[in-house]
């Protein structure tokens, strides 16, 4: 290294004095402890002397040498510098594993050790290989985590990798995925849509209400989608005008739509807020576990999600509309100079978001079989989490729906895994929270301010 200073191995004077002081303090402490414990005087003297010698020696050989960077310890020090974070991280992980093994009965067995090794391997792989990926780093890390979670899950939980479980995971993933379409697109634009859960709930109740009134189900379905899209358009207009407060605008619109739907549905009904009715068979088939797609044994909603994801991924990459969306998200002013209509994009993207939220609400009706206004409440933060974990920036212009698909799958497999090992909802949420941060920290760290000047 270039900054090796030519100093005596003994170190500078202040360092020596500090070392000596620490040694003396430790010695006094050990004398005090010995007297307090009523040990024989010889032992106290012996141990105190040993403490003094040992601490002084440790200080002399390690701390001073590291601090001054002398020739003898240069290599060691360089190695330490280079792999400092890795070594510390490894030690922390080992500590956590040890703590878990001690505190939880039956935690320590062959499978958990193998799982831990797999996780370690994933971390090492992502740290080493991911370093070379500039563009799709988040996708790579997401896939690695997905693979790791899946392998650990199938080792530790019976029936985790069975066809039924995979089917149910995909089913729930497709609900979340369809709900996150809007959030992803809006995030690419640089906004946030907090009305999604309320639109989902309103669509869920509204569809059942309309079919209960005798409207043919498919017309009702289309009407609900249209209404969702309309609300999205309004959201888009308002958010465009009120840039700083877009968060609150969409939230307020959400309150309005969910309150309004409930008022409408409870007029002339003695069960306020509860809607009863029969869900059409084709809707049940569309999104229940027992559904089938053209004779194949999986619910069509998975296929719908796959097609939608494909269209979105290809469309965002290869159409003019998609490319302009990114342009608008990255820099609004320059996009305006290119004659990209800001208003058109905000309105259409928010409209799409509202439409897909309404669509998800309708599909959830087919899954649950009964209308419930709060059915979407968990999607408020889950859609955000899926977007963020996938790697789409909330500031706009970076990311894509492909990333969100990975994010959705990671969240879903993780939920399934946590349910599988018998954790309750609150612990699941806690672990979710604890995992989002390190996952995002692996790929979405912003540069230090001094490099931005």
């Amino acid at each position, binding site marked *: 290294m270039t900054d090796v200073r030519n100093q005596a191995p003994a170190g500078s004077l202040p360092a020596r004095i500090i070392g000596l002081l620490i040694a003396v303090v430790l010695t006094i402490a050990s004398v005090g402890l010995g007297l307090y414990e009523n040990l024989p005087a010889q032992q106290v003297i012996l141990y105190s002397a040993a403490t003094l010698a040992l601490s002084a020696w440790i200080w002399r050989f390690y701390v001073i040498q590291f601090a001054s960077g002398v020739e003898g310890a240069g290599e060691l020090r360089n190695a330490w510098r280079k792999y400092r974070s890795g070594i510390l991280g490894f030690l922390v992980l080992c500590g956590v594993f040890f703590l878990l093994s001690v505190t939880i009965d039956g935690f320590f067995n062959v499978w958990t050790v193998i799982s831990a090794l797999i996780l370690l391997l994933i971390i090492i792989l992502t740290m080493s290989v991911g370093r070379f990926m500039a563009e799709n780093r988040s996708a790579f890390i997401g896939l690695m985590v997905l693979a790791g979670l899946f392998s650990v899950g199938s080792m530790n939980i019976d029936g985790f990798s069975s066809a039924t479980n995979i089917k149910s995971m995909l089913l729930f993933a497709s609900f979340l995925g369809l709900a996150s379409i809007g959030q992803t697109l809006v995030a690419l634009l640089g906004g946030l849509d907090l009305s999604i859960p309320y639109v989902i709930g309103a669509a869920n109740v509204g569809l059942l209400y309309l079919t209960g009134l005798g409207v043919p189900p498919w017309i009702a379905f289309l009407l609900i989608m249209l209404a969702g899209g309309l609300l999205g358009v309004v959201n888009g207009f*308002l958010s465009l*005008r*009120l840039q*700083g*407060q877009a*968060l*609150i*605008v969409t*939230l*307020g*619109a*959400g*309150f*309005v*739509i*969910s*309150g*309004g739907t*409930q*008022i409408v549905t*409870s007029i002339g009904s003695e069960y*306020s*807020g509860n809607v009863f009715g029969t869900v059409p068979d084709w809707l049940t088939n569309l999104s229940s576990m027992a559904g089938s797609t053209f004779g194949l044994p999986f619910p069509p909603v998975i296929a719908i999600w796959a097609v939608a994801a494909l269209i979105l991924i290809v469309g965002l990459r290869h159409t003019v509309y998609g490319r302009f969306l990114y342009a608008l998200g990255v820099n609004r002013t320059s996009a305006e100079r290119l004659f990209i209509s800001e208003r058109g994009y905000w309105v259409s993207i928010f409209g799409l978001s509202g439409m897909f939220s309404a669509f998800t609400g309708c599909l959830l009706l087919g899954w649950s079989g009964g209308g419930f206004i709060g059915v979407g409440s968990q999607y*408020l*933060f889950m859609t*955000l*989490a899926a977007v*963020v974990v996938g790697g789409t*920036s*909330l*500031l706009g212009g970076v990311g894509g729906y492909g990333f969100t698909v990975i994010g959705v799958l990671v969240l879903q497999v993780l939920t399934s895994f946590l349910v599988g090992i018998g954790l309750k*909802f*609150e*612990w*699941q*949420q*806690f*672990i*979710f*929270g*604890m995992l*989002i*941060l390190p996952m*995002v*920290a692996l790929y*979405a*760290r*912003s*540069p*230090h*301010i*001094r490099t*931005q*000047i």
Partner: protein
Amino acid sequence: MSATTAPRATAPNLQGARSSPHLLMPMTLLFALLIIAVLRSPNLVTNAGLGSAVIVAGPLILATYALMSTVVAGRGTVDLAIGPLISFINVTLIQLVAAGALGSPIVTFVYAVAVGMAYQLLMALIVIYIRVQPIIVSLSGYLALSGINLVILPRPGGVAPDWMASWGAGTSVFSPVMVVLILASVAWLLMTRTAFFTHLRLMGSDERAAYTSGIPITVVRIGAHLICGFFAGLSAICFTALIGSGDPGQGTTYTLISVTALVLGGASLGGGRASIAGSLIGAVDLYLITYVLSTFSFGGIQSFVTDLCYGAILVASLLLTLTLPVIQRTLGNFSSLLYFVVLAIVALGVVLHSTFPYATLGAPAATAATGLLEAEALRQTASAAPHDARIWAFVGILLLTLPLLARTLIVGAPRRGVGPVVYIVVVGLALLAVYLATHGYAVVSLGSAGR
């Protein structure tokens, strides 16, 4: 724009009068709601009514203050975890009290504030050193804390410490929660006078500029988060006093409401701009919306109508901010302080009207905002009806008319430096008001001869 160019000659003098236009909207909403609330239910302006209003709105106002300090720090630091954090302090407090570990008020305060500050310190360190977007840090904190809250206290329950029982009673305006609120507001106001706050605002509006001009941005950011934690702790204490037990599920509500209050009060979520008056008014607005809606009865669909109106008022009031530039252009030098005073006088007139015992008087009294006439009417009829509200309204009108006059005089005067007189007058009147409030009954009975 002749209106904007004309006062340029005397610009330095008039700068003080041109305060934040962002306050106009929340102020209008505040007084509109206040008038409706008082007309619907005059009980709000009695001593007990105001007392319970303070108790209910207290945690919300403090939570908004807490959020404000990080929002000013920029980078979009909207701490979504503020609600779960308050809930966390609340449930741990309840559990510790149940275990007998916490007892005295001082220890409880220290505990709440310390937990809040410790959590926020951790957040600040993560934001600074791991350099993840703050919104992601707060999202992660939101999920983790709401999970752990349910682990600590699976369902609402438990009992608050004994000394808190009197806090949550809400029988008088002069409750401990009011003291906490006033102290917190004063503390914040004092903080805005420091260099630290200037640095904070600079960092919020342009972090690179702050860094290059040598501001220790790390220290400033940590400071902002610590202040946030401090107010979150206070809010949690008031929240515990309000519900008198533990509730792990209030997280989402408080987060959404306090963010809303902040934005309604004119703060910019982008950073660099927020005012304590705005946050206070925004939070009170939200309280009043719920209060007004609760005075109407919709039977089974009450909560739905509340949702609908809540959302509609939010969107509408935000839309009205779009008219701000127009107002500014037409009115030029528009003082929001004067606006506040005028609206307050109108509102207090309505308060007097709604609480006035017309039955005993026999003839309708003037409800216009002319202080002296009201005073005469008040003295003649202060007999049997509840004294509380009328004293308050009367003192309030007096309080507000004088600074209005003083202000008009000062703005008209060419000399600068008379401004402090206004504040002295206001402070003096506030002291008078406190005196009158404590000795209120005596004053009124003096007026009504023969009691």
